[in-house]
């Protein structure tokens, strides 16, 4: 999705939108379309993420939106105190962009698995956390970012992903996007490109077991706004994320539920021990982490059937 992101920036720059893109010496072959046409809106600040983030805060003090851009954990973990103190605390309009959400850089090993970022970033004050599942969600997220004035974190997949199915009527990044409709009393919530695996799993369950689900994709994890979800229909919810189980999307849903009057059984699917994963392609690692369609199929079916029996 990095190409779509740069394409989005380029289009806005052509409409004379004022903003700045800072990169930490990454984006080769991706950012040139933007940087050559708009050199005044772009700066490669080198392999120095703490300075990049501090600079972003300084540039944005004037009210200008600034993007910091790198891969995996570099724009986040490496500069976390700067994000916390200089950006989030001040409420500056800085968007931290990480390319390679989850296990996208799987062959490069743990240093490049972005699997704790949601947990960390959503704990920062006023930080909006976005995790688009496809380019359509990315488009609406970018609209949100450009019409807001505070800090945000944008978690992007490396490659382009086919558009997920959508039931009509949804155009707002801050609202849950209904992907599938069904009759099960188990609700499914997913964030990010792993949504494609969830769709495949649900189609399989529908075909083989004739059980159908309401599935929502959430491009915005924080603040978590679940307008439109008809909670009275459900007795359970499954959350799926390409992220560690601790503190991520599923935990955010747990927090949401505990702050409400709702009482549902929650099953969280995610990566159990990311540091123990081997190297490999994202597809392979998703299988190891039991986030492939078949594993999701088993887990969701188990839950739906066990609840039915209660």
């Amino acid at each position: 999705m990095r190409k779509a992101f740069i394409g989005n920036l380029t289009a806005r720059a052509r409409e004379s939108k004022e903003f700045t893109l800072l990169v930490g010496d990454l984006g080769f072959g991706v950012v040139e379309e933007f940087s050559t046409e708009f050199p005044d809106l772009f700066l490669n600040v080198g392999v120095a993420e703490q300075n990049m983030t501090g600079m972003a805060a300084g540039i944005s003090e004037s009210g200008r939106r600034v993007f910091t851009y790198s891969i995996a954990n570099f724009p986040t973990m490496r500069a976390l105190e700067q994000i916390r103190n200089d950006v989030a605390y001040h409420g500056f309009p800085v968007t931290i962009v990480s390319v390679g959400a989850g296990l996208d850089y799987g062959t490069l090993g743990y240093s490049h698995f972005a699997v704790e970022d949601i947990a960390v970033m959503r704990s920062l004050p006023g930080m909006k956390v976005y995790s688009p599942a496809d380019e359509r969600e990315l488009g609406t997220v970018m609209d949100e970012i450009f019409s807001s004035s505070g800090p945000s974190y944008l978690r992007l997949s490396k490659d382009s992903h086919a558009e997920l199915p959508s039931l009509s009527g949804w155009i707002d990044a801050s609202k849950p996007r209904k992907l599938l409709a069904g009759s099960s009393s188990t609700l499914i919530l997913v964030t990010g490109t792993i949504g494609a695996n969830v769709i495949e799993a649900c189609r399989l369950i529908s075909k083989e077991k004739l059980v159908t689900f309401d599935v929502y994709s959430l491009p915005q994890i924080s603040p978590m706004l679940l307008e439109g979800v008809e909670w009275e229909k459900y007795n359970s919810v499954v959350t799926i994320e390409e992220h560690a189980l601790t503190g991520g999307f599923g935990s955010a849903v747990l927090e949401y539920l505990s702050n409400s009057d709702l009482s549902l059984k929650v099953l969280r699917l995610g990566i159990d021990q990311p540091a123990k994963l081997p190297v490999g392609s994202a597809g392979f690692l998703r299988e190891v982490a039991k986030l492939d369609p078949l594993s999701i199929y088993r887990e969701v079916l188990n839950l739906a059937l066990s609840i039915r029996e209660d």
Partner: protein
Amino acid sequence: MKDLLTVARDARLVALKMVHKARAAHIGSSLSVIDILVAAYSFRISNPGSEVLLSKGHAAAGLYAVLNKFGEIPDSWVETYCEDGSKLGGHATKADIPGVVFSTGSLGHALPFAVGVSYRKKLAKESGHTIVVMSDGECDEGSNWEAALVAAHLGLNNLVAIIDRNRLQSFQDTEQTIRLDPLDLKWESFGWKVSELNGHDINLITETLMSPSPEKPHLIIANTVKGKGVSFMEGNNLWHYRSPNDLELEQAITELSRP
């Protein structure tokens, strides 16, 4: 406004009283930086578009005292330093404090921020300098060196860093902690114009601020004494953490009030 030397003297008195009342730390660090801050804020007045950032945020008492004497912060706020719910805490925090544009408290943050400000202003052809006041111990932090490299690479001649070189940090002398010298050569090799001067000579600091390089960021090494102005505090690292008791405050006031 009074002459700058008197302003600095008065600011020292305010800082001492603040720290005494609040039983707060960092009086030594505040006293060493006051003359630098007086020069910097005076420059800010005569050079519109300029800003002063206190990167060594723990010298907040010194900063607030100077801002109080420049008429930016009222006496009533000063009275509440470090009290429950006060606008004025132990580190300069964003709370709409006039004269403070950036909250600090963790070292190594203001210089990168200032690089961003200076870069944007230079592109937009806006006037004014951004002055970052740092401590020497703070130069241990790597983020400063990232910023130093980038500032020089971008030729940010509208950026000034002033190091309060009092040669002491938490435990002991900076040179015994992590050797910084030759500090001037380090910054020079990074591509900065380096000036070195007596950090208690307000007029000289002001003059030096007026002579930036045409193409490089400017580093001013201001040689100072921690605890400057109070004889029993000068060069004594006990005063990094300790606050003066009633008797010590009285002695300090007597010394500073001598004509």
